[in-house]
């Protein structure tokens, strides 16, 4: 009886300690959440503040988000102005010292990847929604995924030193798997290398960089500015003159412009999921690129 009580007590204690050992990680996007789940495993509880079906730039600091950040041990952000509209009010309302910038519970992943598209000349809002610090869609390069996973694993190890080795092992397994996956994707899409593409928004430059195609124009005349009839017509000319075969765009943009361009020029439209969660079947970072590669193949092989 006594023995039973002691073992029950121990069991409860273990459960309690175990529960305590779980790190609560909050991420601004589902891509960051997917990477954290990959390296954190069951040691972490991950919640994303935004859904992959929506443009994270246009989110707002909702009370439910404030509550998540209030309870977080670690906050992961995309940075490079992606969350500029809502991160500051969110951090102020969340009153959580652990995740304030400068503390170990805050990690801006744009600091661990080489950003493309930095503007070196003068920047003006007359240029549209330009990001002087560099293009923030860097998770669309699997090599950056590994860099981000590495930074996340290191940070998890600092916050939870008892399981440092475990995070490192998971990171190694992830990097190995990613390396071999990337070889497959590169081989599959080798025929797209050097081909000219059109993108809806300036959000695929990292994808172009890794797979070697060239984005020569955008449907948006300026980043964040909706296309007009005149801008679409000059794009028709550009597509015909340069024989551009593929238009890539995120699922959440309007499809009318793409349909019009397709009717006028025969350009093939590939709707690419830009984030984990952008489509119901994309749950991991691997799924994301599997889906992107499949969509590019669908459009490219026709």
């Amino acid at each position, binding site marked *: 009886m006594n023995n039973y009580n002691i073992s029950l007590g121990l069991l409860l204690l273990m459960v309690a300690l175990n529960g305590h050992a779980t790190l609560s990680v909050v991420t601004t996007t589902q891509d960051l959440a997917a990477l954290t789940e990959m390296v954190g495993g069951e040691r972490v509880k991950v919640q994303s503040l935004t859904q992959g079906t*929506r*443009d994270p730039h246009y989110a*707002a600091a909702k*009370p439910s988000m404030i509550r998540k950040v209030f309870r977080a041990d670690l906050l992961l952000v995309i940075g490079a102005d992606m969350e500029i509209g809502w991160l500051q*009010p969110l951090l102020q309302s969340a*009153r959580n010292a652990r995740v*304030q910038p400068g503390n170990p519970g805050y990690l801006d992943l744009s600091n661990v990847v080489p950003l493309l598209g930095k503007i070196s000349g003068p920047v003006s809002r007359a240029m549209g929604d330009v990001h002087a610090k560099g293009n923030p869609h860097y998770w669309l390069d699997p090599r950056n995924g590994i860099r981000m996973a*590495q930074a996340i694993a290191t940070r998890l190890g600092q916050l939870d030193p008892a399981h440092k080795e475990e995070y490192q092992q998971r990171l190694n397994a992830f990097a190995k798997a990613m390396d071999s996956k990337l070889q497959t994707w*590169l081989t599959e899409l080798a025929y797209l290398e050097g081909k000219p593409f059109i993108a809806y928004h300036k959000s695929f430059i990292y994808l172009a960089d890794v797979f070697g195609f060239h984005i020569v124009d955008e449907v948006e005349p300026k980043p*964040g500015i909706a296309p007009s009839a005149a801008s679409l017509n000059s794009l028709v000319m550009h597509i015909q003159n340069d024989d551009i075969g593929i238009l890539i765009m995120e699922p959440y943009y309007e499809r009318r412009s793409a349909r019009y361009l397709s009717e006028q020029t025969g350009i093939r439209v590939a709707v690419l999921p830009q984030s984990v969660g952008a489509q119901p079947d994309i749950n991991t970072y691997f799924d994301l690129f599997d889906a992107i590669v499949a969509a590019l193949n669908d459009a490219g092989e026709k």
Partner: protein
Amino acid sequence: MGPSYFCTNRVAVVICLLLLNPAAVFAGEDNEDLIWQLTELKQQIQRLQQTSEQQINTLKQRLEELEVISFKNARVALAVSTAVPARTENSGLRIGLSGLFAAGGSSADNDKLENLQGGAHDPGQNGFTVQNVELSVGGTVDPYFDAQANIIFQINADGETVVELEEAFLITRSMPWGLQVKGGQYFTEFGRQNPQHPHTWSFVDQPVVLSRFFGGDGLRSQGARISWLMPLGWYSELKLGMQNPKGETATSFLNVPQEEIAGHALIDRDVRNFDDLLYTARWFNGFDPLDTLSMNVGFSGLWGPNASGLTTDTKIYGTDLYMKWQPIYTQRGFPFVSWHTEILNRRYEAGDWGDHSRETLDDWGLFTQVLWGFKPGWVAGLRWEYVSANDDNPDNASDPLRDTRKRLSPNLTWYPTEYSKLRLQYNRDWTEHLPDKTAHSFWLQLEFNLGSHAAHVF
């Protein structure tokens, strides 16, 4: 590096021991002893070899792992461990200037518009109005505080420039137990609309009930409040504060001497003790019932002295509801439908005990508004308002601050980017105090934002 250094060292020690013990080596007398010593040494060296081999193997393994991460493949040449210099960002200061202008006309003349458009930032005259030019400076002070100041510039009906310190406050960043303190000059957190700045409003003018209870500039004053994010299963925040009840931005309280309310002249009453301060409370809740639906529910209360007597008090209660629906896929935050409603009640003790004209003024009002963001950058809105007095004061109908008023306002807003907007609004007024009992107004509004990116507050 460590292990190999360690091994060489151990071998060197053994050799040194051999050299330092010549007696044992060269004695020659006791061969058995010598052989035993040699065997011992051999075994030691073998053990050393084994351990160093093990260590070398572990190192080799680690190297292999590292190679996986650093991609030897030429196409994937960028080494993961490439040090990316950490950028130093000084996001310490946010500075912005927003300008809000209106043009339009009404069937009511400028004198009547003064009462019809009671908000100090409403388009209040036929022709052009500079509604609000606001300089906003904010940032992080140190690890403990954030601070913000908003200074507004306006041109009044006489063409004179008016400068006001609208807000200037400190707010704590990371107090324990979910607490947060705010102090300085700030908008009272009553309901959803009162603390919002004019350039973030969804309509060109202030709801009538807010102009009536809180004055043209809204309720704002000097004070401090504490907020507690309660450890509940949903977002639930309690805010309690104290503010100075004096000045034109505390209209229902001490306000300004010589002003009048329902025929009661206001005296010059000062704060003498804690009973004479304005007490503020708000309980604010947020939920996401669905992935596509978010809602906020709030209850607010105000208790403070008023200057219609030496002992008179005012109480104001309000409840607010905000819901926003967005589909699973949105582009630039569109489409969406939002619904915002507030209901307020004010009990104003007018006149001291024993004063023959003593009465309790009982007013209430509501506004309810729906916004439909039907395509990126385009929002259609509709607002309905109702204000009235519950008491049976015979002068209510002719009092522009207490009569029964209804107002219907459809509008259409176009946001070319996040930094500018163009809005057209029609107001249909039904109001008892006007001779015609009704008025029609059209307003065109233009806004620009320079500097820091505006905050997306839900």
